[in-house]
């Protein structure tokens, strides 16, 4: 095992806990815990938002998807970044001016309906869990891949560190922790990529998709993980296959991947419907993610919320340039992952595979693993803070006057379910579930926020109907995809990438429902709109 790995991981955990404890010195009241007393500067806040947002799906999953499927999945990083543009254009400043801390708060401010508030809380918890479980699972899988240790320990370790950090430091600490983790994640991908590019140059710039098919760069032994056909020859689970340097890489029947022109050029297997559905889900889903919205409350005013979002777009965009390079170089240096199907590990394995086993390669390998750990820690902390915030105000009914102890109780409650789930459900696909969380967010909170902010005639009945129709349909699609039997054809596409029909459905039901119940438009809608849209300097 890599000798720099354990010290590297220990440093990340210690620094995370250390900054959390440092933050604890400032966190004295419940308001400090929940909203960092609203005194976080835009640069810190933007780095914290980015650090929180770039999860395991971004750090490991995107590179793995590109290694496997090629150009068609570049829409994932583009959509993950473009989501912030949609957030900036339609939501950022008015949401900050509404003074809402969570999505249920926004429902309260805009429509004043307890039923809608409860429903929104249910969706926040559902999306939060849907997003939290794969983070913890990813942590467990990384732990197994890198150290050979058990999956349960990896998931438990991250779960406990995150819960302790959120319960003890609250959001102020999280702001500093996550800002640090953004820069750690960027460094962990950017520094190795420089060495990888130099290595690629000195190897004589090998072609990514040679005409004769991919070959192994060095002698490689592959352990097949499932009974499969390797180039048409049956192979049993656990069997070891050895290949010399320069031998062609065979195709394994159980691993779904694209090769040659399929990988290199757009089109291929992915239908147009699935591509557009993915674009819709990622572009519109970001604004509905609970851990993203909570952050906007820490901006002092609407204009700074807008500027913060723009900085986030820049930071996130800079980050997403990197996973593509890992996916492409992985095609040359780690082709065995296409045989085992563990493509998510490409970021972790590439430095040592490409640069040999020297000290430099091991150091860089430890660096990317530390970055992966930061990715699990930061996203799960952010999710946990927001789910705990909702449990604190809406389940424990503690309100703003609740004590710090209640918030800690809420955190432990909110953490226990996903941690337990992640221990018992280990075969869910990480990046796919994260994509589904975006689809649910895009079909529930996106219409609620956009119509709530820009359309005076929205009513509580319309909003509830829209949430139930769009959010409910996408929730059902998620449950069928994750738990149900595999589906084929157009039905399979419609269920596994539901956004293309559930988002329009949610908007339609919300608008028609509101028009039918136009008497229920809140009487104070004028005052609310003034508050949402007028600059703070005019507040009277």
């Amino acid at each position, binding site marked *: 095992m890599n000798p720099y790995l354990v010290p590297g991981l220990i440093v990340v955990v210690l620094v995370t806990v250390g900054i959390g404890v440092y933050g604890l010195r400032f966190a004295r009241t419940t308001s400090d815990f929940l909203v960092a007393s609203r005194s976080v500067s835009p640069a810190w806040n933007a780095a914290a938002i980015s650090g929180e947002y770039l999860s395991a799906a971004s750090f490991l999953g995107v590179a793995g998807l590109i290694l496997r499927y090629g150009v068609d999945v570049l829409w994932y990083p583009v959509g993950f970044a473009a989501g912030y543009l949609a957030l900036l254009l339609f939501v950022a400043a008015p949401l900050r001016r509404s003074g809402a801390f969570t999505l249920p708060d926004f429902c309260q401010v805009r429509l004043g309906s307890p039923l809608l508030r409860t429903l929104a809380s249910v969706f926040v918890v559902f999306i939060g869990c849907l997003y939290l479980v794969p983070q913890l699972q990813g942590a467990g899988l990384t732990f197994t891949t890198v150290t050979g240790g058990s999956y349960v320990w990896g998931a438990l370790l991250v779960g406990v560190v995150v819960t302790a950090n959120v319960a003890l430091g609250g959001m102020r600490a999280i702001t500093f922790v996550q800002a640090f983790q953004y820069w750690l994640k960027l460094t962990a991908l950017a520094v190795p990529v420089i060495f990888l590019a130099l290595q690629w140059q000195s190897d004589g710039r090998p072609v990514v998709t040679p005409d004769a098919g991919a070959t192994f760069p060095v002698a490689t032994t592959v352990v097949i993980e499932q009974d499969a056909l390797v180039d048409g020859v049956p192979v049993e689970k656990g069997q070891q296959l050895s290949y010399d340097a320069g031998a062609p890489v065979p195709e394994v029947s159980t691993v779904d991947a694209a090769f040659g022109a399929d990988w290199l050029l757009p089109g291929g297997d992915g239908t*147009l419907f699935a591509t557009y559905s993915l674009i819709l889900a990622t572009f519109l889903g970001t604004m509905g993610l609970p851990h993203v919205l909570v952050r906007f409350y820490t901006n002092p005013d609407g204009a700074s919320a807008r500027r913060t979002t723009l900085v986030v*777009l820049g930071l996130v965009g800079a980050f997403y340039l990197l996973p593509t390079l890992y996916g492409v170089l992985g095609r040359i240096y780690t082709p065995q992952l296409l045989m085992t199907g563990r493509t998510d590990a490409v970021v972790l394995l590439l430095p040592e595979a490409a640069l040999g086993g020297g000290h430099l390669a091991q150091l860089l390998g430890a660096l990317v693993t530390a970055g992966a750990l930061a990715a699990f820690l930061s996203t799960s902390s952010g999710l946990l803070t927001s789910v705990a915030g909702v449990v604190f105000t809406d389940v424990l009914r503690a309100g703003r006057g609740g004590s710090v102890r209640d918030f800690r109780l809420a955190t432990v409650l909110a953490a226990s379910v996903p941690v337990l789930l992640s221990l018992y459900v280990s075969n869910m696909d990480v990046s796919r579930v994260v994509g589904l969380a975006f689809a649910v967010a895009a079909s529930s909170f996106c219409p609620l926020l956009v119509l709530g902010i820009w359309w005076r005639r929205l009513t509580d009945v319309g909003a509830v109907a829209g949430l139930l129709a769009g959010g409910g349909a996408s929730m059902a699609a998620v449950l069928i995809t994750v738990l149900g039997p595999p589906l084929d054809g157009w039905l399979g596409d419609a269920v596994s990438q539901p956004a293309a029909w559930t988002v329009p459905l949610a908007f339609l039901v919300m608008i028609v429902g509101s028009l039918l119940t136009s008497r229920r438009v809140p009487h104070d809608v*004028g005052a609310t709109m*003034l508050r949402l849209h007028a600059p703070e300097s005019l507040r*009277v």
Partner: protein
Amino acid sequence: MAADDEPSTKPLRTRVVLGEAATRRRPADRAQADLAEQTPVGEALVKGLMRAQLALALRLAVVVVTALGSLPLLFAVAPGVGGLKIFGIYLPWLLLGVLSFPFLIGVGWAYVRWAERNEQDFIALIRRPEP
């Protein structure tokens, strides 16, 4: 020394009022009063601002949707475009993997600029001197 002297040496109680509450007063001019009191004029002013901001956001969203959203269709309808190479990189990789990010940031930058200008205009409209 005498107990009777003591009250007179104590400073008199003073009343302290929160600065914000003390300076709160009725809006000085007509437009600001319209805003605060939700008169039809005030309502129309806010509606104007909302319309300007929404039109700006929608216009920029259309720019992004046409620029990025047309790409999958373009690659499907004209596969030849996907096979073009620029600087040794296939066009789809260059467009999606690299150029889309500065494009998104540029649109965001333009939005922040223009949205703030809309707000400045609105403030100027409210604070304009009475004729």
